[in-house]
């Protein structure tokens, strides 16, 4: 409906009106042959009525006039075919408009594009349902009030706007991927939705290397899903995962996609992350991994995203390529940065390298530092397990 009438509020109101009309008419007039087509037809009619009224009052109602143009006056039977790719793209770019907060973009994408219910989105982001409902209402209101158009941005704006869309899809995926227990079902749902969205976007925007790169990254990462969580719901480190449980079909598809994307000669952060994930996917074990290639890819990634987090990941790869001492040197340099010193994963990485070198006391104090900074429950279980191993 949203794609047909170009306005979320109007579409939702129209569907409600159509349902109300159905309740009133069907018992007397009998059920229509295709209730869904009937509802869509009536809702569309009501939405167009509404938009006509709006258009009459407001000469410059662009969205409405576009939707009232020729070619739209047809029957409910043709409705499904009318949700064109342009409409779908327009909806995606509208929901991921950077004039909305990232939280609002994500919520709106899950609601309006993926069709998740408000309660499901609230559960996925661990906020109360009324909070999420309010966030969605505010986002839709801003779209209406600020005049955010439902269409593909002009060519000059596409790179920046596309980056916003990719960020939302990746955020949906990482929200799902990082979870280990608790809302496991809902979180799996987020991974699936992100994968489907990335596929859809790759179909809609073929030949955009970063879009293909994101799809490849999601496939290559999600391929490890069942190996990432242990029997007790604890996270299993990449090096310790049972690689036989990795989904080979997803890895193969992801590798092919990232090779295709990189061949276009326009690398970007998603392609590079996917290439790193592909290196892991190809390796039979952690020792068998081409760590030099991974370090080189992180060097390249740092050019696009010169963040401490990327630098820390690079240092972990250096430790594998050149030994823990060199990795530790880099990580300690990073820890000298005040902001990064309070980032628990850095201390976990330092602890892991001390542990590899057999320096139990240095490892224990780094694990302790991570615990004191506060880590999620599943991570805490993992750290305590490591600490017990070192003390015994």
């Amino acid at each position: 409906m949203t794609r047909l009438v170009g306005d979320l509020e109007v579409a939702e109101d129209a569907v409600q009106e159509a349902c109300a009309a159905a309740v009133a008419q069907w018992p007397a007039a009998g059920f229509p042959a295709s209730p869904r087509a009937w509802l869509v037809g009536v809702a569309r009619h009501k939405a167009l009525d509404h938009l006509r009224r709006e258009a009459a009052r407001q000469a410059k109602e662009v969205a409405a006039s576009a939707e009232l143009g020729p070619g739209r006056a047809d029957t409910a039977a043709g409705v499904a075919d009318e949700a064109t790719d342009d409409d779908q793209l327009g909806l995606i770019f509208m929901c991921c408009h950077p004039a909305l907060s990232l939280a609002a973009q994500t919520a709106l994408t899950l609601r309006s594009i993926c069709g998740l219910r408000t309660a499901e989105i609230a559960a996925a982001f661990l906020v109360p349902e009324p909070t999420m409902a309010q966030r969605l209402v505010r986002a839709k209101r801003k779209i209406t009030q600020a005049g955010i158009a439902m269409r593909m941005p002009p060519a000059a704006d596409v790179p920046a706007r596309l980056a916003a869309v990719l960020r939302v899809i990746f955020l949906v995926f990482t929200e799902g991927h990082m979870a280990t227990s608790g809302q496991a079902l809902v979180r799996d749902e987020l991974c699936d939705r992100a994968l489907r969205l990335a596929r859809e976007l790759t179909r809609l925007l073929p030949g955009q290397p970063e879009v293909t790169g994101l799809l490849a990254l999601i496939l290559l990462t999600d391929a490890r899903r069942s190996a990432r969580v242990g029997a007790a719901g604890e996270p299993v480190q990449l090096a310790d995962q049972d690689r036989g449980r990795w989904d080979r079909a997803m890895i193969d598809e992801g590798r092919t996609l990232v090779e295709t994307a990189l061949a276009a000669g326009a690398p970007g952060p998603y392609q590079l992350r996917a290439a790193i994930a592909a290196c892991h996917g190809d390796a039979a074990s952690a020792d068998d991994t081409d760590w030099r290639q991974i370090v080189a890819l992180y060097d390249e990634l740092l050019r696009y995203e010169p963040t401490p987090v990327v630098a820390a990941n690079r240092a972990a790869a250096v430790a594998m390529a050149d030994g823990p001492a060199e990795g530790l040197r880099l990580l300690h340099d990073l820890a000298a940065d005040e902001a990064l010193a309070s980032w628990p994963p850095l201390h976990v990485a330092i602890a892991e390298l001390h542990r590899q070198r057999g320096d139990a006391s240095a490892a224990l104090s780094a694990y302790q530092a991570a615990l004191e900074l506060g880590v999620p429950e599943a991570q805490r279980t993992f750290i305590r397990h490591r600490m017990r191993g070192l003390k015994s």
Partner: protein
Amino acid sequence: MRYLFLLYGTSPLPEPGTPEHTAMYADYATAVQTMAEAGVLVSCAPLQPASASTTVRVRDGQTLLTDGPAAELKEQFGGYTLVECADLDEALRWAARMPAASDGMVEVRPVITAGAPT
């Protein structure tokens, strides 16, 4: 749709008569001229500094005057531009071309027009 650009400067505006002042006015003249030619400009004006403001309140029939702006801001509210655009994207593109966007910031505020969704 109409949008009001609220133009904020982060530093004190240059004194009239200085080369910086002349350059700033020339930059605004270019930006405004381009908007007028594109048919999006409705109106615009630079403002005297907030120290020239007087704030008016009427309470119980009494008019109370205060020397200064209604709200003290770190940023100088230095002018406005009213534009007519197809949608937010178009308005944002024009806002980015205002000199204030480069040395201060521009708030893009949708204007309520009769009959428009609220």
